[in-house]
C-alpha cells in the first residue's frame, strides 16, 4: 500500500472516537468518518445548522429539505435527536462541549496552526463555521492527504495560506501517517509499514519527532 484512500483515512480517524462522543465533522471529506464507527460504538453527531444526533442520508426522493446538515445534504434523525437555533449550536461549539471536531486542511503547521478556508487567491472567500469549530472542541483533528496534488508538503513549519485558527490542531490523520502535535512539534505515532521514516520526513515540511515507538498504520481494504 503506497497511501491510504480517503475512505481509509476516514476509517482510521473513526477508530479514535469513543462511544457516546459528541462529534462535529467538517463538510465534504470529513463527513465520511461517520460511516466507519467501530461496532458497538455510537458517536452523536452535531451539525452547526442546529441538529444533534442526526443519522445517514435518506433514500433519494425521501429527502426533507428542512432536515439537512451543514453541507446542505439531506439527513435523518436518530432517537434522542434535538433541534436548536444557531446561537445555541455555536454555544455547543465555542463552549467546549464537543468532544471531537474533525476537519479537512490545506495546511497544518507544527504548532497546530490550521489553514483550511482560503487559498488566498482571487475569488469569493467563504469561511462558514470552520473558525468557530477549531476553538471549542476538546480535540481538533485533521484528516488530509499527506501532500498536495503536485507533491508539496501540507504539514509545514508554518502555514503560508490564511489561517483558520492558531495552535488548534492536536492530531493529523494523513494518507501516510498519524501525527500528533505536542509542544509545537510534529510527533509521529503511526506510519505505513511500507514507508521508511526518511521517506515520510522527505514529504513533511517540518521535523518529525519521536516520542515512544511508532506503530504501523494498518487499515482494512475499503471500497
Amino acid at each position, binding site marked *: 500500500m503506497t497511501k491510504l484512500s480517503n475512505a481509509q483515512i476516514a476509517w482510521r480517524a473513526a477508530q479514535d472516537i469513543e462511544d457516546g462522543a459528541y462529534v462535529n465533522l467538517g463538510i465534504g471529506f470529513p463527513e465520511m468518518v461517520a460511516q466507519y464507527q467501530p461496532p458497538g460504538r455510537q458517536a452523536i453527531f452535531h*451539525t*452547526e*445548522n*442546529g*441538529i444533534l444526533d442526526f443519522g445517514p442520508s435518506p433514500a433519494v426522493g425521501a*429527502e*426533507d*429539505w*428542512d*432536515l*439537512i446538515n451543514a453541507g*446542505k445534504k439531506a439527513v435523518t434523525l436518530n432517537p434522542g435527536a434535538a*433541534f*436548536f*437555533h*444557531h*446561537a445555541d*449550536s*455555536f454555544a455547543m*461549539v*465555542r463552549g467546549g462541549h464537543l468532544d471531537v471536531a474533525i476537519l479537512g486542511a490545506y495546511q497544518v503547521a507544527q504548532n497546530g*496552526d490550521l489553514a483550511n478556508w*482560503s487559498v488566498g487567491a*482571487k*475569488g*469569493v*472567500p*467563504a*469561511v*462558514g*463555521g*470552520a*473558525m*468557530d469549530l477549531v*476553538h*471549542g472542541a476538546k480535540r481538533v483533528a485533521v484528516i488530509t492527504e499527506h501532500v498536495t496534488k503536485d507533491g508539496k508538503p501540507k504539514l509545514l513549519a508554518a502555514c503560508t495560506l*490564511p*489561517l*483558520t*485558527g*492558531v495552535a488548534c490542531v492536536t492530531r493529523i490523520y494523513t494518507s501516510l501517517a498519524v501525527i500528533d502535535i505536542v509542544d509545537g512539534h510534529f510527533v509521529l505515532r503511526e506510519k505505513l509499514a511500507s514507508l521508511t521514516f526518511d521517506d515520510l520526513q522527505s514529504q513533511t515540511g517540518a521535523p518529525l519527532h519521536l516520542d515512544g515507538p511508532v506503530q504501523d498504520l494498518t487499515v482494512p481494504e475499503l471500497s
Partner: protein
Amino acid sequence: MDKTIPTLAEAVAGIGDGATVMIGGFGGSGAPIELIHALIDRHVATGHPTGLTVINNNAGNGHVGLAALIEHGMVKKLICSFPRSADPVVFTEMYLAGKIELELVPQGTLAERIRAGGAGIPAFYTPTAYGTDLSHGKKIEEFDGRPYVQERWLKADFALIKAHVGDTHGNLTYRAAARNFNPLMATAAKQTIVQVSHLVPPGTIDPETVITPGIFVQSVVQVTNPQQEEVLNRAKAVYP
C-alpha cells in the same frame, strides 16, 4: 392585538431603500422565499427598494430567493459566512465585478452578533478568528491568559423570517433545521416580518414549545405550502 397582515405585498411594503434586512435561513432551509419574492415584485413594479444591506448565512443559490434579490441589483452589501453554494453564479459574478460588497463573518460569530443585537449586548469577546485575517483591525483582549477578539452586535431595520406555526400574537415554532438563524434575527430587527405556514389563534401553541415569543414579532403573514429553494433550484427555476 392582531399582528397578521393579509398579503405578502403589504407585509414588505415598509422596507425602504438602503434598509438593513436580516433574512433567515441556512441555504434553502428556513429561507422565507415568498417574502423575498414579494420584495422583488415590488422592485420590479416600482424600482424600490434598492441599496439594501442583507444579513444571511449565505449568498443565494440559483436564481430564486436571495440569489434573485441579488440578481435584481437590490443588494448593495452582504454580511454572511458562506457565499458559496451548488450554483453561486449570481453572487460570484456581481462580487468579482465589484458590484456588491461582502463582509465575511465566521458563522458562530455571525449568530452571536445577531443574538447580541437582540439581547442588548453591544459587544462580546470570542476566541473565533483570533490570529486570522477575519480579526484584522478588531480589538484583542486577554482573559485568563488567552487572547480573544472583540465583536460588535448586529441589528437590522427589518428581519424576514420563516416559521412553521404562528399565532396572531406572533408566537412562533419552526420546523426541523429550518430554525437556524430565524429565531435570532427575530430578536435583532426593529420590524420582524414572519411568513408562517400555519396561522393559528393564541392559545393553540403550547407555551412550553414556543421558540420565538410574540414580543419579538411585528407582522405575521400566512403562506401555506411555502416553496423550498432546493426544489426550485433542482427544477432550474428563475424568479420572477
